[in-house]
């Protein structure tokens, strides 16, 4: 027996101390009794005045000595030398890409990979470290460098596949870093092999073993593309384009079903050549429909991956902005507003303006006119009169553009260097308005801001007294203005790939966002300034976004977005990985191991001490 910490044996000094305790006489307190006549049988110690007594062996003494000897030996960390496999640091890469959800092996490729990883884990040499990484769009370290195999097993069991493709290069580089010493590093990749190896992999990955969990030649039908556009003949109607592919070396007969708002409206039989594809267009989708889906099924019922069988498209994300132009007559404004897409323009002369009617419009454009009481909608005020809510404080002649805020979304792609204005009003801007174009001496030529729930923009000059309508920047500026004053829905991208984040921009008055996924699970977010990134999009399907205001009692009109796999690499679930397995040399892993057994000694000492305690208290 060898000792790792021989200094621990110093604890053995306690053994003679215990014996000395037994040699020392017990300090007794005096008690007067009538007579010791009856106590004589119970006399323990007649030589009461001597400091030491003869050592009497008792069970307690023996138990204490044995327990102390065990503890002292355990503290010295005894070990025995054994030959065994050298410990390694195993990095278990678990492919979590979408194709791992294929069911060509039961119950699924991913479940099989988890099982294989757990098997590999059990076969590692003693004292080996293990790191588990889930390989998804970004590698996720489940548990790092631990000898606790139960922890690794639990992490593997709890892992879930993603709906995106896996970044295998990043995962392998991460495994190389986490694995540490190359001589002890073992990288195990549990995958279906349904990807091609990145070309720029480093050479020094060391030992890499690929465990493939897929059936070869597994075919799959998939909807790999879907998109919509307004019908050129009637922009209220939508057309849907889709592509269906056959990832198999055998021809397939597919049935494509289109559904609108969940109601099937058409089925098409499609013959697909081996590795072929078919593009389909569905026209005349009824106006007002919110979403459409295309599902594909193999008539022979053989389809390896189900999550790419259906793709969704959002048809109408927002209704056209209702814009009211209140003007004494401005051909430039009328022309540009009528040409902007997704705008319903209404015109009224300033003399016939009625505040009650104005409330139903999303945006009101006041040109050379302002009513005494402003309506509730968002406003574009052009050349405001001297009196009214936006009071002019004199005017400036031929102002020159000094600077403009190029970073503001309102001025994106807008070049104002050539703007010439004959005369502009010096409007006293409220504090909530931000000047976006101003002269060098601080006179604002364009300002915008938000007062409570209402957005307001001001152009304090007559368009006809400037060259702005003739500039190429004018329609872009007006488009930006309409987008600002009549913002699109909360969803930034109507269609995304599964596993990709969706950016959600709630309206200013919204307190919370609720996102309900296709698996009927909903999550709520408290909104703050700026957009919210929603990343739990691994399940393909429709996601509904509700904007809650007034403590969740009311909702603004909800929006939809769709998550589709739409990834040819992932839909092609046939194993095709080559060139990775077997890289690196494996050393003969036999070495001399120091096997400690202090735990056994401690485990023996504990019941001894418990029995000693019990025995002592039983006697008293």
């Amino acid at each position, binding site marked *: 027996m060898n000792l790792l910490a021989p200094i621990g044996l110093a604890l053995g000094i306690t053994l003679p101390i215990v014996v000395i305790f037994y040699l020392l006489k*017990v*300090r*007794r*307190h*005096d*008690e*007067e*009794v*009538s*007579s*010791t*006549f*009856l*106590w*004589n*049988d*119970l*006399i*323990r*110690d*007649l030589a*009461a005045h001597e400091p030491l007594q003869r050592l009497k062996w008792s069970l307690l003494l023996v138990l204490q000595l044995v327990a102390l000897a065990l503890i002292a030996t355990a503290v010295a960390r005894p070990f025995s030398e054994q030959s065994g496999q050298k410990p390694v640091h195993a990095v278990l890469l678990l492919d979590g890409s979408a194709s791992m959800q294929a069911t060509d092996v039961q119950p699924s490729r991913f479940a099989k990979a988890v099982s294989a990883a757990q098997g590999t884990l059990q076969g590692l040499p003693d004292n080996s470290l293990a790191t588990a990484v889930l390989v998804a769009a970004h590698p996720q370290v489940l548990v790092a460098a631990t000898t606790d195999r139960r922890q690794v097993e639990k992490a593997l069991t709890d892992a879930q596949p993603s709906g995106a493709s896996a970044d295998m290069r990043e995962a392998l580089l991460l495994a190389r870093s986490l694995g540490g010493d190359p001589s002890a590093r073992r990288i195990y990749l549990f995958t279906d092999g349904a990807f091609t190896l990145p070309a720029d992999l480093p050479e020094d990955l060391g030992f890499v073993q690929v465990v493939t969990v897929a059936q070869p030649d597994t075919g799959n039908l998939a909807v790999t593309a879907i998109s919509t556009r307004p019908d050129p003949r009637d922009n209220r109607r939508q057309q849907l384009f889709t592509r269906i592919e056959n990832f198999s070396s055998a021809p397939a007969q597919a049935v494509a079903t289109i559904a609108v708002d969940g109601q099937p409206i058409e089925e098409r039989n499609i013959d697909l050549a081996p590795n072929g594809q078919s593009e389909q267009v569905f026209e005349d989708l009824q106006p007002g429909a919110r979403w459409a889906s295309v599902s594909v099924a193999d008539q022979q019922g053989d389809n390896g991956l189900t999550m790419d069988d259906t793709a969704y498209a959002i048809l109408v994300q927002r209704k056209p902005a209702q814009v009211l132009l209140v003007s004494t007559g401005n051909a430039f404004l009328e022309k540009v507003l009528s040409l902007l897409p997704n705008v319903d323009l209404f015109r009224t002369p300033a003399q016939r303006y009625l505040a009650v009617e104005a409330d139903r419009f999303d945006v009101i454009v006041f040109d050379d006119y302002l009513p005494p009481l402003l309506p509730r909608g968002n406003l574009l005020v052009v050349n405001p009169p001297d009196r009214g809510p936006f009071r002019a404080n004199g005017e400036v002649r031929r102002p020159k553009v000094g600077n403009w805020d190029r970073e503001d979304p309102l001025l994106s792609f807008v070049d104002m260097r050539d703007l010439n204005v004959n005369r502009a009003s010096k409007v006293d801007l409220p504090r909530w308005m931000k000047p976006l174009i101003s002269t060098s001496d601080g006179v604002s030529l364009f300002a915008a801001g938000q007062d409570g729930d209402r957005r307001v923009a001001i152009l304090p000059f007559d368009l006809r007294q400037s060259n702005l309508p003739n500039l190429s920047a004018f329609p872009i500026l007006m488009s930006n203005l309409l987008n600002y004053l009549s913002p699109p829905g909360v969803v930034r991208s109507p269609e995304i790939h599964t596993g990709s984040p969706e950016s959600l921009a709630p309206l200013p008055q919204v307190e919370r966002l609720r996102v309900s996924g296709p698996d009927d699970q909903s999550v709520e977010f408290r909104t703050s300034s700026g957009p919210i990134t929603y990343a739990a999009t691994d399940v393909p399907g429709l996601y509904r976004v509700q904007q809650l205001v007034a403590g969740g009692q009311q909702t603004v009109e909800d929006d939809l977005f769709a998550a589709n796999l739409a990834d040819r690499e992932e839909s092609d679930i046939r194993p095709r990985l080559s060139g990775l397995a077997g890289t690196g040399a494996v050393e003969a892993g036999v070495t001399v191991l120091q096997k400690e057994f202090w735990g056994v000694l401690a485990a023996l000492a504990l019941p001894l001490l418990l029995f000693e305690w019990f025995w002592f208290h039983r*006697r*008293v």
Partner: protein
Amino acid sequence: MTQTLLEGTFARRLERLSLVSRRRLVGQGQGDRRSLRKGSSLEFADYRHYVEGDDPARVDWNIYSRTDTLFVRLYEEEEVLNVHILVDASRSMDWGEPAKLRYARRLAAALGYVALNAANRVFVWPLAANASNFGPAWGRGRAGPMLTFLEDFHSTQFMTPLMGTGIGQPPDLEQSLNSFTTRTSGLIVLLSDLLSPSWERALSRLAGRSGEVVVLHTLAPQELRPALGGDVRLIDRETGTAVSVTLNNDAVRIYGQRLDEWRRQVESFCARHGMCYVPIDTSMPLETLVFDVLRRRGVVR
């Protein structure tokens, strides 16, 4: 102080009691105690054949009419009973809560009062070195001096023994009996804890005397049920010697067994020698002891 030894109501109740002597005692002087001598009292004892000189009035004529033989009735002659109350005054008796010696003084006072009321001749013998005795006394009028004596006599004082020589050690129970010097017979009542290695010899000496012996074995509750524990050095109150013991549950249990066994030995010894044995726990009220226990044991009636 006399009141504390014998309170008024208790004393009045005692006046209805008398001591019982189970043997026929030979005494001196006429009293109200039955004697072995046949006399002329009204207590019938036996018959015998008529001899010349007998009083014709004592002939039982009814028997003569049936048997034609003359028998005379014999009556017990009532004599004075000597009552010797021996109170162990060793230091071991001066211990306990309540103190055994105090309890013994009160019990001796009660029994002495009963005896004086019954026209018995009362002696009180403190069993201590150099102690004087009280008595003989008879008649209720002597109750006061008896109580004063019982209150005043001292227990044996502690003396540091000279190591190994035995000189200066207090007398044990048998030696203390040397102070019981009278040769008169009668009822001997011993109040003692008997906590002495010589208890057997002491009782033998009493048993060897003529007359009846009542042993009132007086122990304190702390002796019967010790509440000690832990590692202690027990100091003998009588001799000053120390005994070191570890009083755990086992030790207390063994002590209890030893105590019971010893009391059975004493009781058995008394039975063999015709002595009346009464174990007494000083935690018992004195009235309960006298009117209940001693009456059931036939010491008083």
